[in-house]
């Protein structure tokens, strides 16, 4: 930025600085080939999920159609990933499962971000006993392993994708509340906030325009890493038999069913399992890459 010509008009100067920062960020991201791989897998996953209705090889299978005549076919030209115990095409189920996993993973993190973020802002900004109450509840929830809490809530709410999303969100918001609170409380002490307040900027505008934009980086990095772990938690719930119920195809549920047919029919497990692995890996790599771009100080 030091090389920019200071005689340029202010707007143009700002634009060129921004363009330069963006170019630098893209450069940093592309430097790490692992993040590029992560991005590539994530893009493919999202594309597959969006295009699912048009690319399913056997669309009837996702609505519970069975075809016992072709049960347990090994991978072949007709069934790339083989078929399961009732003759459904595993590729079809894995493709459709990406919709469930991505939808629930992204929704959980979005909701957790909104709920945890709002509570974190309140706790960090208002302070006092409100801060104490919110943070003590947060601490308590964080001592319960998230899988067990999510399982208990999901089991009580009953099956279904939205009940599962609610259950996982309940276990996830505290981490965001804690992060946002710490960031807001730190920013509140900074001089630009005091200065704005002296100038008569109201609290809503102060938080929305001056504090929140300054704490976006750590939150975005955490959120992108968390999408992968949320997908993992969704699959884990499916695996223990809570969450989405058949015939809706879900990767974890498919894997749980495949356990009964090991080792002869290995393909019933390998493909959904690999799908979970790749989805989690993609968002982990993406999150790591984003951290390098947005917060170069934490590199290596």
């Amino acid at each position, binding site marked *: 930025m030091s090389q920019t010509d200071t005689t340029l008009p202010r707007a143009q100067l700002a634009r060129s600085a921004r363009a330069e920062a963006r170019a630098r960020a893209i450069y940093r991201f592309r430097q790490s080939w692992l993040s590029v791989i992560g991005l590539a897998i994530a893009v493919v996953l999202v594309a597959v999920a969006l295009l699912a209705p048009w690319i399913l090889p056997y669309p009837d299978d996702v609505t519970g159609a069975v075809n016992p005549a072709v049960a347990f076919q090994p991978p072949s030209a007709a069934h790339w990933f083989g078929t399961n115990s009732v003759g459904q095409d595993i590729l079809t189920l894995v493709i459709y499962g990406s919709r469930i996993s991505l939808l629930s993973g992204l929704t959980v993190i979005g909701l957790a971000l909104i709920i945890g973020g709002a509570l974190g802002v309140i706790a960090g900004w208002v302070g006092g006993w409100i801060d104490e109450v919110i943070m003590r509840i947060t601490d308590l929830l964080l001592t319960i392993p998230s899988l*067990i809490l999510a399982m208990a809530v999901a089991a009580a709410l009953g099956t279904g994708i939205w009940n599962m999303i609610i259950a996982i969100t309940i276990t996830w918001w505290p981490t965001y509340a804690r992060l946002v609170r710490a960031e807001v409380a730190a920013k509140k002490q900074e001089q630009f906030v005091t200065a704005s307040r002296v100038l008569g900027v109201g609290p809503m505008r102060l938080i929305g325009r001056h504090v929140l934009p300054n704490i976006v980086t750590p939150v975005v990095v955490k959120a992108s890493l968390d999408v992968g772990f949320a997908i993992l938690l969704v699959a884990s719930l499916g695996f223990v038999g809570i969450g989405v119920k058949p015939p809706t195809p879900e990767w974890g549920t498919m894997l749980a069913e495949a356990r009964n047919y*090991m080792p002869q029919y290995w393909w019933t497990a390998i493909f959904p399992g690999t799908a979970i692995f790749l989805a989690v890996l993609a968002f982990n790599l993406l999150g790591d890459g984003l951290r390098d771009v947005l917060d170069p100080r934490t590199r290596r």
Partner: protein
Amino acid sequence: MLWYVIRRLLLIIPTLLGLSVIVFAIARLLPGDPVGLAAGPNATPEVIASVAAEFGLDKPIPVQYWTYLTGLLQGDWGVSLFTRRPVAADLAEFVPATLELVIAALLIAVVVGIPLGLLAAIRRDGIFDYLTRTVSLGAIAMPRFFLGLLLQLAFAMALNWLPLSGRFPLIEFPPDRITGFYTVDALLIGDWHAFGLALQHLALPALALSLSPLATILRMMRASTIEVLQQDYILTERALGIPSWIILFKYTLRNAVSATLTVIGLYVSWLLGGTVLVETIFDWPGLGLYSTQAILGQDFMPVIGVTLVIAMIYLVTSVIVDILQAVLNPKVRLQ
């Protein structure tokens, strides 16, 4: 130091109290019909009412909580709706099994992760460094239950080296209970045959559980070692001609491990939750399998019990980690 430990341990009590309120509230306020499930699908209203009365579920929730809490303090953790056994007795049976698994996994993770992390840091940006970094990224993303399944496929089904599941062969008697840890009990009574069997059963589940913490510890160890190696005092020691292995083991290791220790402490809670999946895959009779069955049956006394036990283990571990930090690093003051 002693006062600090006592104060920290005393602080666990209000935390557990708060936790019991939250878990109890979640268990009772959520929709769901545990009584109906326990009484069976064909139960008449009279039967349902008598089951509800038997477990005190017909009283108001604050009264139920008070009954539970006073019972808890007397060692009565409630009764499972399904096994009709006291939860405390069930826990006494399942806690050692889970702890054995978690401790074994943590041991593998520490014993393998720390040296590998150290090595990766010394040979920074070398082939070994890239290899471990790539593999550990994959290891963190690997679902434990899928890994468990793959291990079973490879070592139990294809190669037939290790048992598929369980904690001990069904046809043999496990070693007499002293600690509840089969491996430890077998060693204590000097039964090498039983020790071998227990270890064989422990190997795969412990491995499946250890991979993710192993990768995290490796990455953390690598990062903190690199940071320590860049300190001025290390440069001074190099300039003084002190051999690199002395610099590494005497001056670097201790500081690097101290940072990694925090991560290890945090992982205990994750491991205790993670046992749910690994125990399901390997039919390991521990807290995870117990709580899964209880949760699926909406049998909430065991769920509350398991949650409190896990929270207690987690809180005690964090006290131990803080103490170890202070022992390793004199800069950390306990107050």
